[in-house]
């Protein structure tokens, strides 16, 4: 099958039911997308599928064929959100932050000026270190609110 990841077409000889997470991590070798729970509850594996945030541990690779997949590596490192993440010193252990940034990227694409309620509703990813206050502050900073 062919997956289009961060603008690159990649041919993979894998099972269609292999979760997209493991195709991205173990087959393609992009390790910024993390494994946390495997049941779509923590959000560490969040990637964008045609701009929408999905939990890649629970999306079969076959379902991503023909769609635009964006991972943390595809954000380029200099997006407004990534700059805000550094300015607000958001990460602690950092393990959830790739997923957080993907969820936040999708939010700002949909709502460039999100309200507190919008942020609360959109960010359902889990952070164990407790960076939630800074995530919220960084999203607002990136949106210039």
């Amino acid at each position, binding site marked *: 099958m062919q997956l289009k990841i961060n603008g690159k077409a990649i041919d993979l000889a894998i099972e269609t039911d292999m979760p997209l997470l493991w195709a991205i991590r*173990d087959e393609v070798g992009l390790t*910024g997308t993390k494994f946390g*729970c495997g049941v779509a509850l923590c959000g560490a594996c969040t990637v964008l599928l045609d701009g929408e945030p999905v939990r890649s541990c629970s999306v079969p690779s076959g379902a991503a064929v023909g769609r635009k997949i964006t991972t943390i590596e595809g954000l380029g490192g200099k997006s407004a959100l990534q700059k805000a993440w*550094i300015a607000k010193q958001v990460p602690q252990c*950092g*393990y959830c932050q790739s997923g957080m940034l993907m969820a936040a990227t999708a939010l700002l694409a949909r709502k460039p000026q999100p309200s507190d309620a919008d942020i609360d509703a959109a960010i359902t990813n889990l952070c164990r270190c407790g960076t939630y206050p800074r995530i919220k502050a960084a999203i607002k900073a990136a949106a210039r609110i």
Partner: protein
Amino acid sequence: MTRTQTLDLNGSGEAALGSPSRRRFLRQTSATAGAAWAGAFSLGFYLPPAAADKLATDGPRAGALDINAWIRITPDNQVICEVARAEMGQGTSTSLPMLLAEELECRWEDVRMEFASVNEHLARNKVYVTFATGGSRGTRDSQLVMRKAGAAAREMLKAAAAERWGVAASELRAKLGKVSHPATKRTATYGELAQAAALQKAPADIVLKPAGQWTLIGKPLPRFDIPAKSDGSAIYGIDVRLPGMVYAALLQCPVFGGTPVSFDTAAVLNRRGVKKVIAGPDFVAVVADNWWRAQQALKSLKVVWDYQGGEKLNDAAVQKILEAGIVDAKVLRADGNFDAAWTAAQAAATTGVKVIEADYFTPYLNHFTLEPQNCTARVNGDHAEVWAPTQNAEATQAEAAKTLGVPLQNITVHRPYLGGGFGRRGASQDYVRQALQIAKEVPGVPVKLLWSREEDMQHDFYRPVALYRQRAVVDGSGKLTAWQAHIASQSILERVRPASLKDGRDFQAAEAFHDMPYEVAHVDVRHGICRINVPVGFWRSVYHSQNPFARECFLDEVFKAAGKDPLLGRTELLAPNSRDRKVLEAAAQAGNWNGKLAKGRFQGLAVQDAYGSFAACVVELSVNDQKAVTVHAVTVAVDPGHVANLDSARAQIEGNVIYALCTMFLSEINIQDGRVVQSNLQDYPLMQLRQTPRINAVLVPTGGDAWGGMGEPPYAPITPALANALAAATGVRVRRTPFSHDGFTLA
């Protein structure tokens, strides 16, 4: 200069060419640090430990001094600081270089860090003191070493300049990475002086800057590790990739202590990508060319286990063992005569004397590091390389060596980032052992072992379960005169460091009680060690994660009976100038205690010292008629003596608030049929961003020689403050966690 040269200075001022292992280390670090450091000149120096004077004159041992710290300076003025402690989000890998740079007088933008090599540590007689990262010790136990290292290097750089210019070192100034001689307007950069500095004698007397002159310590500086954690490039243990690497998924016996008896590999080995099925002492693993394929194959593997009788354990049996532990509890502290005071109080019950009794309970808890346990290993004959997200690289090396039955030096340990630690990955190196047991079955091939979340949930070293039975006497004037606390819990130290028990008594398990700051005439503190077939381990703030809940909530019950305000009641029992009292008053002020509150809002407070720091908390919350609790604001004041990186300290307070909210409202591990009931986030949930209160992080360092911790102390007073606020709001005194047992949920 492209030549790599190695010179060591020890406490006696002798320079010596590096040993072969030292040269090997330099090549390794050059390779790992990238081309920028290749060929860099290294200023490595020994700093004498406490007994330095003696050692320096003690001929035969003079060359074998321990190093306390490490600095390298390159010709282009880069200062590379070695960090032995692990970075798991607490910021230590930035705070420690800050401490060193403060005294070195270099430019902060020239400072870099590298994780110290445990192999170098071993080869050089334990130069880095310890790699253990726990007990909130990363900064407080390293600060003197790091500051002295910086100061010694600065003086050696000045001595080198003095020699070069033929002037007295006392006429020189060191500032911003340069040594200058104001009288002749000469300057030289640290990079230019480094080579000569390495040949200088280490100063015998090191005078450190007074706190008032600090320019870096206490400032909010950006952490080194954050950019890589914002673009996906940071490499965690789970991210290690090596040529030819294979992946292992494992299944452990669901009942603690059980072993695999048999399994049928036929259905597994013909699956795509599967290479091998391996049985260990407590697990069965499938090795494949992709982790998902290994994990899928594992699901179709039917394993027969021998539970060794462990399947009979359940929550009710645990409760019985705790009850017996209360009865058998040993005395840890006895002031006055509690029994006499208690008996007299009951006789005097009609004269305004009050007696209070209550039981508290706290459950087992899982650490839930978001990165599940994992370890990558490659075994070549009697040598191995290990890549582990570890809170103690030295313990990782020891575990790997023990597993293979080889000497420590045969194990090379690499140190990727940790996706959370919280005590899970320090003293407990089970995942390292398993990785080695699997890797030795595929010689020469690197294997990445990764646990599923379900394995991680059901095979932790859990925060111990505990039962508290307390009694108190309040005299006719409303004064607390007698306090009894009998505690039963498992002993972590009995498993990890049995030698630290005193006559079979575990003082750590009764921390917050036997060392309580309150002045009470009759105190009776006892602890009973319970032996239960559930593995326990250090969990963020250890017994301070649960004992303060029982102590500070019971104290509020006492004040309620005595008709006293919780703040006033506590301050009456605390010495006027005690740090507990000062930090409590700071929290009360910042948290607007007894101030005007919005309608329906209530407050609770608590104080607790832990790990050398003093912390107090004020919680403000409201409760609706469905018993859904909205936590509006949490104020935490901490007096850690000194703050290293102000922003990291604030982040630790924020993190502790959220960690504590999860514990109080959501988290519990139950035991049924000898196994853990919970398996993943659907039954062990974590709180979400939308539930986050306003967090008011207040740092009130009071200085002095002793530094306290920041990673765990803020946690201690938060849990009782939450329960005390809940009692204020509803009149319901919750005496066990999570609060869901009393019907309360987090809105």
